[in-house]
C-alpha cells in the first residue's frame, strides 16, 4: 500500500527496446509487419485534438506467432513508447512500466492489444512500437522474430497548455495577504466611524501615522495585541489544515512536504508571533498602569522592540510564497537544520528569529527598568500586584535565557550561509550542542509565556472572589521559584538525545521539583476562593477553566521526568497533549481571561457577557475534546511530526502499524473538535468588534479590583495618570532599619511616603 513499493514479481514484458529486443533473441525480420490503428480499425489519423483520450489497436501480422488463437501457448508481445501524452492500459493484457506500455503474462497469447493514449496540449508525438512474434515454446530461440516501427501524430493546433495548479501554500498565504488588505479597509472604517460627519482623507494620514510612530505604551500595547491575535489566527489555520490531514489514516490532503512546513510554522508562529506579542501587549498596557507610572522607562526602545516584530514575521514566513518555507520543526534540531535538503526558507526563518531575540532583549531592558525604578510612591516590591510580579519574573527568565538562543541561531545561520561547521559532524561540529543551547532557552521560554498567565489568573480570581489573594508572599516566592527552577530542568527535553547519562539523571531529579512551587500556586488560588463571594463573569469562567486544564497539564507533566517512562512517551502524542494542555489550557485560557478582564479598561466599553459565556462553554468542551484523546494516542505509540500514521493489521488494512483500529476514530474526533474550537474564537472576535462600537460605557473600576489600573479612567488618558497616585497599605508595618538589600530595592522617596 502506502508503505513501500510493492515487491510482487512482475511478469516479463519487453524492455530495452532501444537496442533491439532483450527478451527474445532472433533478429528483425521483414516477415513480421507492425500495425497501429484506432481501436475501431480505421487508420491512425495524422492529427489529434488536445487533451483527448484515444483508443488504439496495436499488433503484428506474420512470423511464427501469427497462428489461430489457442494453437500455441505464446504468440507474441509488444512495447509502446510515446514521446508526448500519457499512455494507459485498458485491460490486464497490458501494463505500464516506467512510462512505457508493454504486454503482461496473460497478454502474450494475443497478436493485438487495445491501449489508450491521452493527447498533450500541443506538439508532435511519435510512437515507437516494438513487437515480438514467437514460436511459443516458451524459450528464446532463433526463429522468434521481432519488428519495430514508428508512427507520428501531430497537434490540430489551437490546443493550449493547461494552467498548472497553484501551490497550496501560495493560495493560502495569498489569502492571508488579502485578509491583511481587508484589515486595512477595516482600519479605514474604524477611522470613519470615529467621526462620520467630519471624515476627511487629509485627517487620515496623520491619524494612521500617529499609530505607526507612537511611543505611547497603550498604543504600542494595542499594536502588539492586534499583531498577536492576527498570528494566532494564522497559526490556528495551519493547525486546522494539519488536523484535516490527520483526520483519517493515509490521507493525502497535504503532501508530506507541506505538512513539515506547517508544523514548523505552527510552532514558531504560536510561540513567537502569537503568545509572546499578546503577553507583551498586556504587559505594555497594564504594567505601567498597575505600578502607577505614566509610561514605560524607554518609550522609543519600546516602539523599536515592537516594530522588529512585523519585520521578523515577514522574514520567518518569506519562504512560503515559493513553497519553500522552513521545514525543520520549531525546535530546529541539528543536523537536520544544517542539512542541504531543507528548504531555503529555513535560512530566513533563522534570520527572523534572530530579530525576535533582539526585540525580546530590548523589551526586557525596558520592563526591568520600569518595574525597578518607576513604581508609585508607597509601592515596595512586596506591594506590587501579582500580574506585574509575573511579568517581572518572566522577563527576567527571558532576559537571562535568550542570549543562548541568539548565539545558537547565529551559529546555525553561519552554518547555512557561509559553511562554518558549528553543528556539522563531518567537520567536527556537535549537533547536541544545539539542543543544549536551544533548550537552555526553550524551557525558560515556556515559563516566560505561562508565568504572565499565572499573574492574570491571580488577579482575576482574587477580584472575582472579592478577596485578597491568599498567601501573597508565598505566591511571589513561588513565581520566583518557578523562574529559578526553569533554568535547571531543561535537560528533560533531551532525556533520549544521547547527552551525558549523569546530566540526564540530574535533570530527572530537578524536574520532579517543578511540581512543588506550581502546587503552591494552585492551592493558593483554591484557598483564595474560600469564604469569598465568587462573581461569575466571563473572565472568572476562563480562570476557573484555566485551573482545571493547567492542573491536568501539570499532572501529565509528572510522567516525563521518569526516564523509564520517558523512553516510551518521548516524541509521542502524549507530549503533544501535555504541552498543549499547559500552553493552550494555560497560556491561551489565561490570555482569554485577560481579554475579557481588561477589555473595558483598554477601550472604555463593556463586552457582551452572553457571547462570552457561549464562547467559553463551546471552547472549553471542544478544547478538551481535542487534547484529551491525544494522551491515549500517545500511550498507544503514535509518534508526532508524522504526516500520516499506520494502523495495526486488521480487516480494513493490511499494513502492520502500531495503532489499534479505534485510533482512526479518535483522530477524526480530534479533528472535528479542532474545527469547533477554532470557530468558537469567532465569538470572541465578533464580541470585541461589536462591543467596540455598541458596547456599554465602562466605569473606571467595573470589577472592583484594588490595583492602580482601576484608578484611572477607562480608557486611560495620555499620559496614563494625570497625577502619580500613592499606594496606601492596609497592613501595619513595623519600622525596621533597612538592610543592604532593602536599601538597594526600596525607592529613595520611601521614607517621605511613610510619613
Amino acid at each position: 500500500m502506502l508503505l513501500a513499493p510493492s515487491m510482487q514479481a512482475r511478469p516479463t514484458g519487453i524492455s530495452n527496446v532501444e537496442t533491439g529486443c532483450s527478451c527474445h533473441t532472433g533478429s528483425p525480420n521483414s516477415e513480421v509487419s507492425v500495425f497501429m490503428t484506432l481501436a475501431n480499425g480505421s487508420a491512425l489519423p495524422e492529427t489529434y485534438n488536445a487533451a483527448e483520450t484515444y483508443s488504439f489497436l496495436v499488433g503484428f501480422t506474420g512470423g511464427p506467432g501469427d497462428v489461430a488463437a489457442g494453437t500455441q501457448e505464446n504468440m507474441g508481445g509488444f512495447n509502446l513508447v510515446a514521446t508526448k501524452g500519457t499512455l494507459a492500459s485498458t485491460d490486464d493484457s497490458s501494463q505500464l512500466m516506467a512510462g512505457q506500455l508493454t504486454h503482461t503474462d496473460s497478454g502474450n497469447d494475443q497478436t493485438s492489444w487495445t491501449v489508450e493514449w491521452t493527447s498533450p496540449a500541443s506538439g508532435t508525438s511519435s510512437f515507437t512500437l516494438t513487437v515480438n512474434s514467437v514460436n511459443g515454446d516458451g524459450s528464446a530461440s532463433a526463429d522468434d522474430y521481432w519488428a519495430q516501427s514508428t508512427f507520428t501524430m501531430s497537434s490540430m493546433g489551437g490546443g493550449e497548455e493547461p494552467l498548472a495548479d497553484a501551490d497550496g501554500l501560495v493560495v493560502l498565504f495569498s489569502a492571508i495577504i488579502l485578509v491583511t488588505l481587508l484589515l486595512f479597509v477595516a482600519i479605514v472604517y474604524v477611522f470613519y466611524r470615529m467621526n462620520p460627519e467630519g471624515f476627511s482623507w487629509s485627517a487620515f494620514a496623520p491619524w494612521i501615522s500617529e499609530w505607526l510612530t507612537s511611543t505611547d505604551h497603550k498604543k504600542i500595547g494595542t499594536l502588539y495585541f492586534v499583531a498577536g491575535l492576527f498570528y494566532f489566527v494564522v497559526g490556528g489555520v495551519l493547525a486546522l489544515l494539519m488536523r484535516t490531514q490527520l483526520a483519517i489514516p493515509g490521507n493525502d490532503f497535504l503532501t508530506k512536504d507541506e505538512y513539515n512546513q506547517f508544523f514548523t510554522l505552527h510552532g514558531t508562529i504560536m510561540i513567537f508571533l502569537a503568545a509572546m506579542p499578546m503577553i507583551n501587549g498586556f504587559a505594555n498596557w497594564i504594567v505601567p498602569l498597575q505600578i502607577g507610572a505614566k509610561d514605560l522607562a524607554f518609550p522609543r526602545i519600546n516602539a523599536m522592540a515592537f516594530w522588529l516584530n512585523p519585520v521578523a514575521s515577514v522574514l520567518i514566513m518569506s519562504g512560503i510564497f515559493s513553497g519553500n518555507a522552513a521545514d525543520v520543526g520549531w525546535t530546529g534540531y541539528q543536523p537536520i537544520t544544517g542539512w542541504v535538503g531543507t528548504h531555503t526558507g529555513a535560512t530566513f526563518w533563522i534570520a527572523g528569529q534572530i530579530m525576535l531575540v533582539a526585540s525580546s532583549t530590548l523589551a526586557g531592558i525596558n520592563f526591568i527598568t520600569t518595574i525597578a525604578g518607576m513604581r508609585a510612591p508607597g509601592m515596595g516590591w512586596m506591594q506590587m500586584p501579582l500580574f506585574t510580579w509575573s511579568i517581572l519574573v518572566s522577563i527576567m527568565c527571558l532576559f537571562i535565557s535568550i542570549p543562548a538562543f541568539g548565539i545558537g541561531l547565529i551559529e546555525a545561520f553561519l552554518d547555512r550561509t557561509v559553511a562554518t561547521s558549528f553543528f556539522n559532524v563531518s567537520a567536527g561540529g556537535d549537533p547536541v550542542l544545539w539542543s543544549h543551547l536551544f533548550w537552555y532557552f526553550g524551557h525558560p521560554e515556556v515559563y516566560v509565556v505561562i508565568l504572565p498567565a499565572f499573574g492574570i489568573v491571580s488577579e482575576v480570581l482574587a477580584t472575582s472572589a472579592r478577596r485578597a489573594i491568599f498567601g501573597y508572599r508565598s505566591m511571589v516566592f513561588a513565581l520566583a521559584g518557578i523562574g529559578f527552577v526553569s533554568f535547571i530542568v531543561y535537560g528533560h527535553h533531551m532525556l533520549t538525545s544521547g547527552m551525558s547519562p549523569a546530566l540526564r539523571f540530574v535533570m530527572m531529579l530537578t524536574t520532579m521539583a517543578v511540581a512543588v512551587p506550581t502546587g503552591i500556586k494552585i492551592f493558593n488560588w483554591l484557598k483564595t476562593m474560600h469564604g469569598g463571594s465568587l462573581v461569575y463573569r466571563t473572565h472568572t469562567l476562563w480562570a476557573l477553566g484555566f485551573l482545571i486544564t493547567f492542573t491536568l497539564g501539570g499532572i501529565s507533566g509528572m510522567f516525563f521526568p521518569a526516564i523509564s517512562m520517558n523512553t516510551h512517551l518521548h516524541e509521542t502524542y502524549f507530549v503533544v497533549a501535555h504541552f498543549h494542555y499547559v500552553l493552550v489550557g494555560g497560556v491561551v485560557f489565561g490570555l482569554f481571561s485577560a481579554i475579557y478582564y481588561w477589555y473595558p479598561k483598554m477601550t472604555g466599553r463593556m463586552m457582551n457577557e452572553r457571547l462570552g459565556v457561549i464562547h467559553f462553554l463551546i471552547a472549553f468542551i471542544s478544547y478538551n475534546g481535542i487534547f484529551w484523546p491525544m494522551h491515549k494516542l500517545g500511550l498507544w505509540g503514535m509518534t508526532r511530526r508524522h504526516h500520516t500514521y499506520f494502523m495495526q493489521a486488521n480487516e480494513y488494512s493490511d499494513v502492520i502499524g502500531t495503532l489499534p483500529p479505534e485510533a482512526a476514530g479518535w483522530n477524526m474526533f480530534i479533528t472535528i473538535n479542532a474545527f469547533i474550537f477554532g470557530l468558537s474564537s469567532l465569538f470572541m472576535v465578533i464580541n470585541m468588534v461589536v462591543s467596540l462600537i455598541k458596547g456599554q460605557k465602562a466605569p473606571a473600576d467595573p470589577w472592583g479590583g484594588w490595583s492602580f489600573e482601576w484608578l484611572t479612567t477607562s480608557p486611560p488618558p495620555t499620559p496614563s495618570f494625570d497625577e502619580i497616585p500613592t499606594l496606601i497599605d492596609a497592613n501595619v508595618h513595623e519600622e525596621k532599619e533597612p538592610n543592604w538589600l532593602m536599601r538597594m530595592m526600596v525607592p529613595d522617596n520611601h521614607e517621605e511616603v511613610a510619613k
Partner: protein
Amino acid sequence: MAVGGASYNELFEIFWNWSIFVGVIVFGWQLHHSFFYRSKDGEVPNIDNLKVGEFPLHYHNGKLEAAWIIAPSILIIYLTVLIIGPTSDVWEDPDAIGVEGVDYFEVGVTGYQWYWEFDCRELSTDLCDVGVDADTGLTTLILKNNTMYRIDLTSGDVTHSPYFVQWGAKEDAVPGLQTAIWLPIDLTGKFFIDCAEFCGDDHAYMTAILEVHE
C-alpha cells in the same frame, strides 16, 4: 497489545493512581468552592474590603501554606525514589559493561534518510538475522525470544530515533555519536519500528519490521 515495556507499565500504574488522587483533591476542592461560594450579582459582600489604590490586608495562614509545601514535597520525593530504580532497566551508559548477571547480544542499527540498516555483528542467524518482510517489503530485523539485546545506535546523516513501541524503547541515533538501548525481547510476533525524531521529508515512512521467533 501491551505497549511500553514492563518497567514503564509498572510505573505508569503507580503514577496514574497518584494522578487520580491529586486530581480528585484539586478538582473536588475547586468544584465545591466554585458553587458553594458563588455570589449572585447585586449581593456582593466585599469581604476583604478591597479599595482602589489600597494594598489589601494580607490573607494568609502560615500553617496551611507550609502544609501544601510539605505534603506535595513528600509525594514528589516518594515518586522520585520510585523512578530511580527502574532507570537502568531501559537506559544505561553505553560504555557500561551491561546488565549485571544477564548475557546480552549486541546488534547495530544505523539510521539513514530514510531507512534503517541493521548489523548483526557476528551473531548466529538464530540470534539475529536481517531479511525482507514478504507482506510489506520492509527490511526486517529477526531476533530470538527471551533474549537480552543491546541496540547500538548511530546515524549516517541526520538524527533519527528508532522506536520499539512494545518495549517502550527509543533513543536518538546521532551522527558521530554512539548511543545504546536495552531491548529485553519477551514477545513473539511481528512489530513495527518507526522513526521518532524528525529527519526530513520521508520521516513518517522510515519504517522497518522487527520479527521475533521462538
